[in-house]
């Protein structure tokens, strides 16, 4: 083992036995011997990494990818089936907070119990007792039984013990959600402090910003293998992008199912139902003097599409038929988010201060620069007369999805250019 390293993990593999029908007692074992079939599931398929002393790393990945298992192997709760793990120094884990707490015993007594589980001797605990109590901000209550504590107080006490163990290696699993915002910040500052003192830290978390703030390296684990590692920010961007892709695939599936559902429905009641180009949830109003016969969302190449990037140009393409001749009217569209937030709406009259002549049949298209942030949206289209009579108005005529790999938040993207101390920062628009 390299003497600069605190943790070395070499080609670690771990499998779990998944029993189809597990018999744990004698009867089951004898009678149904054939039944206790099991399947080996390889949770880790060969993971290697090393962590330098005083370094912090983050493990990320979707649920069930093996990151918590990795942490359990590091804690020595479980052992790998092959490969080796070497660690140097005292290891403390913030996996289970408040282990061994007895509700009827006082906070002070529980500090002793809990800290002793981390392998501290009485002397060592005595030395840290004041720090622990001070950090937990529970001075007044420390001699009350723990069962009288609120859950926040309980967690604060537990976290204070765990973080004051002064380990050489600290393993953390998704626990920085302790207490109120103030205490969380305090925990975070404490983490930085002990990191500065040379403690090696391994964090498993879904809170990517936290990892970005404290870790030098991030490991993205997928299907039991390290898919990518490096600077947290970049790894996370790729990770989020891949998650987004998966989500979209899922959406596409449901969308296709919905379209299929639409068709069967329209076959059932051909007169009453909405035309095929409408979303299942669409609502139609109006006199019917003018009727839309098609509505599509298109990309720049003019192809039908319903998933767009935040930066895409989107075209709404409409076809109509009119029963009367010589009408003048006004076309409009609107966009609502899934939670019915009205994101945008405009019409020809607003834009051009004029009405347009409506022919017997025709087509309308409007192209806009999308800047909506990721989410599911609905398109409304309408055609009115010049004096406001609704000819046709279809709410939720189309649904579409916006995705983006950038992680800005809000409703829509405001193109931003940063200038700090005269130096201009701008990431190229892709």
């Amino acid at each position, binding site marked *: 083992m390299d003497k600069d390293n605190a943790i070395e993990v070499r080609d670690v593999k771990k499998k*779990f*036995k998944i029993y189809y029908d597990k018999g*744990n*007692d*004698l009867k089951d074992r004898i009678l149904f011997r054939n039944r206790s079939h099991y399947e080996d599931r390889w949770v880790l398929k060969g993971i290697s990494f090393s962590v330098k002393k005083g370094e912090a790393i983050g493990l990320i990945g979707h649920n069930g990818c093996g990151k918590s298992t990795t942490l*359990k192997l590091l*804690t*020595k*709760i*479980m*052992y790998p089936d092959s490969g080796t793990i070497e660690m140097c120094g005292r*290891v403390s*884990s913030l*996996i*289970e907070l408040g*282990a*061994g707490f*007895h509700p*009827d*015993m006082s906070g002070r007594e529980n500090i*002793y*119990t809990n*800290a*002793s*589980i*981390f*392998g*501290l*001797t*009485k002397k060592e*605990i005595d030395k840290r007792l004041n720090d622990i109590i001070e950090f937990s901000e529970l001075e007044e209550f420390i001699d009350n039984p723990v069962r009288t504590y609120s859950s926040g107080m309980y967690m604060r006490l537990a976290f204070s013990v765990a973080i004051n163990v002064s380990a050489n290696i600290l393993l953390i699993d998704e626990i920085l959600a302790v207490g109120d915002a103030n205490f969380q910040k305090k925990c975070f500052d404490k983490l930085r402090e002990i990191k500065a003192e040379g403690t090696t830290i391994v964090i498993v978390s879904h809170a990517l910003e936290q990892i970005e703030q404290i870790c030098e390296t991030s490991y993205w684990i997928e299907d039991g293998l390290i898919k990518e590692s490096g600077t947290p920010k970049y790894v996370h961007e790729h990770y989020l992008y891949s998650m987004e892709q998966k989500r979209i695939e899922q959406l596409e599936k449901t969308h296709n199912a919905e379209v299929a559902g639409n068709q069967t429905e329209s076959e059932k009641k051909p007169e009453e139902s909405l035309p095929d180009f409408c979303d299942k949830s669409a609502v139609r109003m109006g006199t019917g003097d003018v009727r839309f016969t098609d509505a599509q969302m298109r990309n720049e190449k003019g192809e039908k599409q319903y998933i767009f990037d935040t930066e895409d140009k989107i075209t709404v393409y409409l076809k109509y038929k009119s029963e009367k001749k010589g009408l003048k009217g006004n076309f409009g569209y609107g966009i609502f988010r899934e939670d019915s937030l009205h994101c945008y709406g405009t019409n020809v009259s607003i834009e051009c201060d004029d009405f347009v002549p409506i022919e017997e049949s025709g087509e309308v298209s409007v192209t806009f620069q999308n800047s909506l942030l990721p989410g599911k949206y609905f398109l409304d289209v309408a055609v009115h007369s010049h004096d406001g009579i609704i000819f046709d108005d279809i709410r939720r005529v189309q649904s579409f999805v916006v995705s983006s790999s950038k992680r800005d938040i809000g409703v829509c993207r405001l193109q931003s250019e940063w200038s700090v101390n005269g130096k201009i920062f701008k990431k190229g628009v892709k």
Partner: protein
Amino acid sequence: MNIFKELYDYRQMIFSLVRKDLRGRYKGSVLGFLWTFINPLFQLLVYTIAFSFILPSPIEKYYLHLFVALIPWIFFSSSVQGGANSIIASKDLVSKIYFPREVIPISYVTSCFVNMLLSFIIIFLVVIVSGVGINPLAMLCLPVIMIVEYIMALGMAMLFSAITVFFRDMEHILSIITMAWIYLTPVLYPINMIENKTIQKLFYINPMTSVIVAYRDVLYYAKVPDLSTLLIAFGFGILILFIGFFVFSKLKRHFAEEL
């Protein structure tokens, strides 16, 4: 032999768990820790009444005869039965945190042991009050007997706690075994009630026999016990402890997955 150094480092944990168990047991009750004494005291009272009036025994001071054997027996049987279940009972700790797993059965047995020691305060009182008196030389043997019993109880607890994790029936099998075992050990009757000397010898194959007989020699007869049979019991205790540690160390790696 790394495990012993590690266990030494975790001595505070053993201490904490024992304390938590002893203090936690009666927390919230009005009499609290006093129950530790009230329990055996009333047990004794019931035996005295039962075996004086309801079921008179030819043995003189039968209540004491029984009591000095029953308290150590309860320590042993609860260590084996409860100890076997101890790992499963501390599943939350075992599956979430690293510590030498041996700590769990050790602290369980130790807590039973401390409980027995506290009951001995009552025993001493009764021994003095009943007029049997205390033989100082015999009393010196008492710690030795206790240690021998502790070693045996610990060995059994280690062995079965590890096995029970993988084979849950063990718990129920053990409760039947200990139920039968009490009759194979002279707890309820004196060893010399078995008149056939060969059969009496056979009874000594059971290591608990020499332990119980030794307790009774010291506390009921106020005489120095036969240390040679105790030595065999000691040898047996060491053997079972060794097996217990060995099996435990083989199985403990898979505890977390199995729980």
